[in-house]
């Protein structure tokens, strides 16, 4: 039997898992909808956290751990977070050895900057394109393994489903070639899912187009538990755009950027006034709510619009170029103004999926045997709110756990001969779904449904949540689901048909949207990124619990699991 592991997703998590699997002597079949070098990880800008304490501030993994748990409002299970924070310094060293062009100090050591939710310089960075640099480093290592024949890449392939045997064990995947549109099943001893976030559910977000959450949703519909779906991070500073809300990294504030709005003809630095200790570097949920308050409640948006200023003009232009060049360029290219000379106009935007596939504490294993998950598509490291620059480290750490766990599973799990029928049946099931789309004669345009989905989710399931609006949203989602059944493909050809693939993804988005919405509806408290004005306090007695959503024919069924708080006792979160 071939000793192979399938990895779906070629971002930081998928690639780091692939490297570990190969090092353990197994081969990897790596699936991705885009060439892996174009994965969404490239969009991460500001940096990666590790308590290396190279600035003599007395930082330590224990403080990083505390900041992360506190920033996540105590919703994360503490064991894995603790291990991640402890592993982070070695991960930075490894990336450094792989050739990541981190910024340097005069002595040739790694430079670190401050990020949100901490008082320490803990964030290593490569200009303002850290995600790109990290992804490339891992991509290069995997390319090396590919050249050695240890990794086979299936780029431009869409994941459709897991192949589960009669006992519910994952035996491989079913996927579809985005060009030839051939449906194929692939056997593997274990499968790792690393398919990122689900920003597309919100229409416009800071996420890439590929971040549809389609794979996670498909697995959820096959029985995987989806945890903490309601926790969606809205980043305080993004550049509004019609196609995308482009991230303006927290590093802009980490390097001294100040947020203000004009009040009585003078700049009012409301974050600095309201949060004197952390100032502009409060966690993202706090900053986002403050901006919403200033714009919507106080009516102080710049020129009456939904925007506040993010100001870098007081900082030396050369220093800005060295440390933030990448993001300044984005602003210049898309807005046309030079942020070295005029303050940038920014507004909050959906940014990160804290929730995701449920995985166990130790192995990144989902509840489906043989199926593992790592990266943004799983739920485990960020609790109710992710701290800036923790995503990159959680992706890589998650991959580093998932890879060896999958290999260990492959070695120890019972080797039953899988009947061929298991694969042919799944393939037939998927082909039948495809055929359904081709023979549909409805009148609905999938792109129009998507627009409505995005608008309703952004309006009701992001920064501020009200139960009546969530109920309306769920009704709307069900209506969209009904209309989705009547989707008509404008294009019925069977070669590289993007309308077809988008339509398939959209179906999965609609299912996952209900998990987000109903999870939010049920959680009557405010915690981290989840904020309900009608329930403004955190309610540990009732909701210090992980939301566990299970798929049923009538919609998500929610259960709750206790949170491991064995290291740090929950305390009020006040910045």
């Amino acid at each position, binding site marked *: 039997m071939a000793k192979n592991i399938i990895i779906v997703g070629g971002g930081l998590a998928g690639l780091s898992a692939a490297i570990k699997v190969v090092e353990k002597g197994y081969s990897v079949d790596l699936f991705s909808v885009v060439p892996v*070098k174009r994965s969404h990880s490239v969009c991460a800008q500001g940096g990666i956290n590790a308590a290396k304490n190279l600035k003599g501030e007395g930082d330590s993994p224990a403080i990083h751990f505390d900041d992360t748990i506190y920033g996540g409002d105590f919703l994360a299970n503490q064991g894995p977070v603790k291990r991640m924070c402890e592993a982070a310094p070695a991960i930075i060293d490894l990336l450094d050895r792989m050739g990541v062009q981190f910024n*340097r100090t005069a002595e040739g050591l790694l430079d670190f900057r401050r990020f949100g939710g901490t008082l320490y310089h803990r964030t290593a960075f490569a200009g303002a394109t850290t995600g790109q640099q990290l992804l490339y480093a891992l991509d290069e290592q995997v390319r090396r393994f590919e050249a050695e024949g240890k990794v086979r890449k299936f780029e431009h392939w869409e994941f459709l489903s897991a192949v589960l045997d009669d006992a519910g064990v994952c035996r491989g995947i079913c996927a579809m070639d985005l060009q030839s549109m051939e449906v194929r099943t692939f056997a593997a001893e274990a499968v790792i899912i690393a398919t990122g976030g689900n920003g597309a559910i919100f229409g416009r977000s800071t996420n890439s187009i590929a971040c549809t959450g389609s794979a996670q949703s498909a697995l959820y519909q096959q029985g995987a538990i989806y945890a903490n779906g309601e926790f969606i991070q809205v980043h305080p500073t993004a550049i509004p755009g019609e196609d995308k809300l482009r991230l303006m990294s927290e590093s802009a504030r980490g390097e001294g950027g100040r947020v203000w709005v004009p009040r009585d003809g003078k700049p009012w630095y409301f974050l600095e006034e309201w949060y004197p200790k952390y100032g502009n570097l409060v966690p993202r949920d706090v900053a986002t709510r403050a901006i919403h308050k200033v714009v919507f409640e106080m009516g102080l948006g710049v020129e009456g619009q939904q925007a506040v200023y993010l100001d870098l003009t007081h900082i030396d232009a050369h220093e800005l170029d060295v440390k933030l060049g990448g993001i300044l360029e984005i602003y210049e290219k898309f807005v046309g103004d030079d942020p070295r000379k005029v303050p940038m106009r920014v507004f909050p935007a959906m940014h990160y999926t804290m929730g995701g596939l449920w995985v166990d504490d130790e192995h990144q294993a989902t509840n489906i045997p043989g199926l593992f998950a790592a990266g943004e598509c799983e739920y485990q490291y960020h609790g109710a709110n992710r701290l800036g620059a923790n995503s990159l480290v959680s992706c890589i750490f998650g991959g580093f756990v998932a890879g060896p766990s999958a290999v260990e599973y492959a070695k120890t799990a019972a080797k039953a001969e899988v009947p061929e029928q298991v694969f042919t049946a799944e393939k037939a099931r998927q082909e039948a779904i495809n055929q359904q789309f081709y023979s549909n004669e409805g009148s609905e345009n999938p792109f129009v449904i998507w627009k409505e989905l995005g608008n309703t989710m952004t309006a009701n399931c992001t920064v501020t949540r009200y139960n009546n609006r969530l109920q309306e949203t769920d009704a709307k989602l069900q209506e969209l689901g009904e209309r989705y059944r009547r989707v008509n493909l404008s*294009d019925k050809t069977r070669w590289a048909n993007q309308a077809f693939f988008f339509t398939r993804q959209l179906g999965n988005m609609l299912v996952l949207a209900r998990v987000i919405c109903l999870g939010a509806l049920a959680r009557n408290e405010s915690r981290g990124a989840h904020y309900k004005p009608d329930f403004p306090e955190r309610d540990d007695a009732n909701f210090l619990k992980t939301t566990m959503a299970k798929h049923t024919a009538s919609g998500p069924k929610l259960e709750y699991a206790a949170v491991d708080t064995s290291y740090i006792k929950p305390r009020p979160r006040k910045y």
Partner: protein
Amino acid sequence: MAEKTVQIRIKRQASPQEGPRWEEFEIPYRPGMNVIVALRDIAERPVTVEGKSTSIVSYDANCLEEICGACAMIINGRPRQACTALIDKLEQPITLEPLSKFPIVRDLQVNRQRLFEDLKKVKAWIPIDGTYDLGPGPRESPEVQQEAYPLSNCISCGNCLEVCPQYNDHTTFVGAAVISQVRLFNLHPTGRMNEGERLEALAAPGGIQDCSYAQNCVKICPKGIPLTESIAAMGRAVIKHTVKKALGK
């Protein structure tokens, strides 16, 4: 006042087997639009200017902030990323064509696999011993970092290859992007240990000798990478290495 619109002409091709054809679209104008928004508008209502229903336009795109490299296409005759192509700055009718140096998949979508294969040829990676904890990486001066960082910004979009008169079906030329990657890895203290392998790959068929220095690459690079500088630097390194090796050193 008549509503302002955007005219777009798109070169379409349903599959590699079929011939290309042009279709024209007219969509409502909004401030701040880019080519991606225009293509999405067409997807929401795929109807040509003659009122004929058509299929949505296929194209590659992902990050929409010019860092993933996916959405390269020829816009008004110039290869560039569609996401940064703002409608306000383009002359109308806007023409969209697929990159011509790569095999067509469909419409504006092409197969750029050759680029990634060429990165394998030159061993564009740092050969580390393993991912176990071996302590910090080598020290590097901020000056070297500032020289290397721009090189590591290459997004593999392929625009430099599209404009290169030497990158075509007659040659196996690896092109400016790949040559510049060799420079990046040879700058790194660990990467330098294997510089010979990479330089030899650059002296193999399709290597740096196929560059005739038209210098188009550096003009078109969306990331402003000093590609001609990289080519000159690698030209020197390859010669030095080749001569040294020939003399048995």
